């Protein structure tokens, strides 16, 4: 038996505890397990390591990763991270606490979640949000499930082709063998084909899912779409990069029923894709269909304002085998990061950050397209991301930029092989003119 720093019991204590229990050895505590299933060998893993050894080994792995000036986007973005966010998320009472079932000692966590819900409602323009979901893709799934569960005899979700390919893939995994059809409506030149979506609206359609800015970065004009969807008694789900919503129309302003997306741009490092936070918000009439945890305001026994997990009759621990979502844990700590970030930047900062992304993305776009003659996929307005059709020179361009210390963009064919030769370029407020000029100089050699 080793004396490990994470295991406080000493040999003397173990002995005395065994006596209290009335057994003579630790093995006796496992005597209820048949010898035939008891492991008869030691695990084939290295032995205990010290803290210092572990740190060395993991630092070495971290150093094997490399990075560059990043113009990568498509769902994860390199934004400026305020120092306060990481510091406050690291406060032990936040990060070592559990789901706040015991409201009286969890007021801080509960209030932070209430503030998160309030901010998501405000940004999307919706009435009610939950305490977070896993990520943007699974948020779209939960929204689709809400739509299916709130309309009878519906078995189809219409998805615009311009929705993130991963989101479409996750939708197919979730609904593939439930008898629910995920029908993709083909796009044209990086834009949803709204006429085709309208034509495809049949009585069995539960919801229409669109994304703006879309996977190629372009904003979509959803004028009239909600009316058509609602005339068909279907729900409109709109997914958005929330960073765009300081300047672009919110989901509520497009008259959507459910708003979803991923808050990674709000104060969370890209961290190879996770943890981030899926957000979901909806209208009051769908409140009781909303999956996951929700915090509500109430009072305590003395009449003071207090917060508590509420509306739990919707959840798996009451509805069990009738539950329409199994979500239990969410991304509370990462949602706290988003809440701190939004508190810091405030209403003015959200507009400013959005405008900086917009201005910088257009600078690079105009230099590449107008100056170098690169072919843009679409002439539609975009936010912080746009797509070039580089064709057969894609390899050369990406490699040349990589050699120059730049990740030039996402090859969209890596997300969906239909998109050969397309490169989606994301520009955040973090990118400088100097970095973009370097990008252009290298691109000039290749294009």
């Amino acid at each position, binding site marked *: 038996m080793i004396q*490990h720093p*994470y295991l406080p019991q000493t040999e003397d204590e173990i002995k005395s*505890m065994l006596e*209290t229990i009335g*057994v003579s050895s*630790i093995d006796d505590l496992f005597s*209820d*397990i*048949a010898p035939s299933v008891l*492991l008869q060998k030691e695990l084939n*893993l*290295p032995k205990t390591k010290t803290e210092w050894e*572990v*740190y060395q080994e*993991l630092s070495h792995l*971290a150093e*094997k*990763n*490399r990075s560059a000036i990043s113009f990568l986007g498509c*769902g994860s973005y390199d934004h400026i991270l305020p120092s*306060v966010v990481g*510091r*406050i998320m690291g406060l032990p*009472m936040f990060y*070592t606490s*559990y*789901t706040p079932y*015991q409201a009286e000692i969890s007021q801080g966590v509960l209030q932070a979640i209430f*503030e998160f819900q*309030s901010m998501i409602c*405000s940004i999307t323009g919706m009435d*009610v949000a939950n305490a977070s979901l896993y990520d943007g893709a699974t948020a779209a799934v939960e929204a689709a499930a809400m739509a299916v569960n709130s309309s009878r005899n519906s078995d189809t979700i219409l998805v615009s082709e311009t929705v993130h390919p991963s989101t479409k893939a*996750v939708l197919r*995994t979730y609904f593939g*063998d439930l008898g629910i059809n995920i029908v993709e409506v083909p796009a044209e030149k990086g834009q949803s084909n709204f006429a085709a979506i309208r034509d495809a609206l049949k009585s069995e359609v539960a919801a229409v899912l669109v994304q703006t800015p879309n996977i190629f970065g372009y904003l979509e*004009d959803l004028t009239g779409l909600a009316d058509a969807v609602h005339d068909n008694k279907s729900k409109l789900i709109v997914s958005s990069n929330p960073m765009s919503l300081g300047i*672009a*129309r919110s989901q509520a302003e497009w008259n959507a029923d459910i708003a979803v997306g991923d808050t990674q741009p709000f104060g969370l490092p890209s*961290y*190879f894709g*996770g943890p981030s936070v899926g957000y979901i918000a909806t209208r009051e009439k769908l409140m009781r269909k909303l999956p996951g945890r929700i915090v*509500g305001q*109430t009072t305590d026994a003395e009449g003071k304002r207090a917060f*508590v997990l*509420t509306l739990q009759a919707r959840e*798996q621990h009451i509805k069990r*085998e009738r*539950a329409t979502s*199994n979500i239990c*844990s969410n991304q509370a700590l990462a949602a706290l990061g988003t*809440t701190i970030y939004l*508190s*810091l930047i405030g*209403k003015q*900062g959200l507009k400013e950050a959005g405008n900086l992304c917009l201005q*910088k993305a*257009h*600078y690079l776009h105009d230099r590449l397209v107008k100056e170098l003659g690169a072919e843009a996929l679409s002439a539609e307005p975009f936010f912080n991301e746009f797509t070039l059709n580089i064709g057969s020179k894609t390899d050369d361009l990406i490699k040349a930029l990589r050699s120059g210390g730049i990740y030039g963009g*996402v090859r969209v064919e890596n997300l969906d092989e239909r998109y050969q030769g397309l490169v989606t370029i994301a520009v955040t407020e973090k990118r400088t*003119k100097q970095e973009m000029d370097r990008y252009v100089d290298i691109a000039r050699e290749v294009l």
Partner: protein
Amino acid sequence: MDGETQLIFERSVAGRRGFLFPENDMETKPIDNLIPENYRRNSETCLPEVSEVDVVRHFTELASRSFGVDAGFYPLGSCTMKYNPKVNEDIAALSGFTSLHPLQPSEDVQGILELMYKLTKGLCELTGMQWGTLQPFAGAHGEFTGMKLFKAYFKSRGEHDRRKILVPTSAHGTNPASAHISGFEVQEIEADHRGLVSIEDLKKHLDENLAGIMLTNPNTLGLFEKDIETIATLVHDAGGLLYYDGANLNAIMGKVRPGDMGFDVIHMNLHKTFSTPHGGGGPGAGPVLVSKRLVKFLPVPDVEKQGEAYDFCFAHPESIGRISGFYGNIGVLTRAYAFLLAMGSDGLTAASEMAVLNANYLRSRLKTSFSIPFEGICKHEFVLSAKNIKEEFGISALDVAKALLDAGIHPPTIYFPLIVPEALMIEPTESESKETLDRFVEVMESIAKQAAVDPQKLHDAPHQTPVRRVDEVQAAKHPIVAWRPE
């Protein structure tokens, strides 16, 4: 700390700033030229306008009105709230991990891919399985993934009528929910007088429609399912599969492996067993590991090793597909891998032994003041019942829980499993010292004594917390779920 805390919105003062972005270092064009009016937001947000120090003090105050493992004992049954080693936070914060974009070229992310590969291998060794995926974001997400693997397996065999999943009455609520949302029908299996799966009842459910069974072993009463080999044989012979809910794996590491017991799919809750912080309810990680016959159905992408290099592989034609936008909660995986290395084979085994020792010690000491519904030794957790003090003095499990708050102890899970009246489900974990356990016993005994002397004080508990007992009914009847400007 006493009284109410302002909401961050209530601290807002128009014009105040908490963060500045760099000025635009190139020509700024009018937004109208870049985004036409029709695409533009035309309403204000209500985000607060506060200074940096306002933000820091606000959230520091909220942190002080919360309770974490770092503050005190957290014997929350089936949630495994153990100590979170601090070096893991330093490791997780290394910029070589945090700054990685999920779509970087694979030659630039060899370190994280190696970590993912080796963690998967380590978890396979620990559980006795063949291979797995680290993608699920949480235990429930792992359950869903596992149920999809069941579906894919039966589909590949043309057994479309296998739609029935069995779960014990004591199962975690997410089990039936996960089976249901995956298109299965759920049937409950009863527990017998021992608190174990009733073999007799199980046999009644074995037919050509059986897809499988979802079990946690040790079960939610903290009891090891002694008949597991019989259960596995019965289910397999009937053509079904076995799913292992890893919520309770902390009791058996290095002792028993789910793969050796006959399970086909397991999820692990890394945020429990591998001590990654719960963060107020996430992020977690719920890797899924499978036996050989299910490997080809695992989600994509899969991490593969080719020679000395690691890469993602998407080319698995029979895969269930993608289950997350990218690859899961990588930040949680780095902490878990650090824990795996720090513990090692001997440490993991010792952790289980100490978790089981601590649970049995508490159980032995508490059985005089409270009733114990099931005899025998327990594993990492056990269930007490407050039904004696409820009947005699009207003191419920909820009252006991609220009284514990005043002693600076997080209450156990209460009213679960549903099959025990006034249940208090206690899991001390391996990281608690004998002094902590002894103090818990003293506090529990004093609550039991107080039930006889001054029950009203217990009904009114807690007394020392930032707020008094919270009105849950009001919250549900008149939902206020977001702050709005006046």
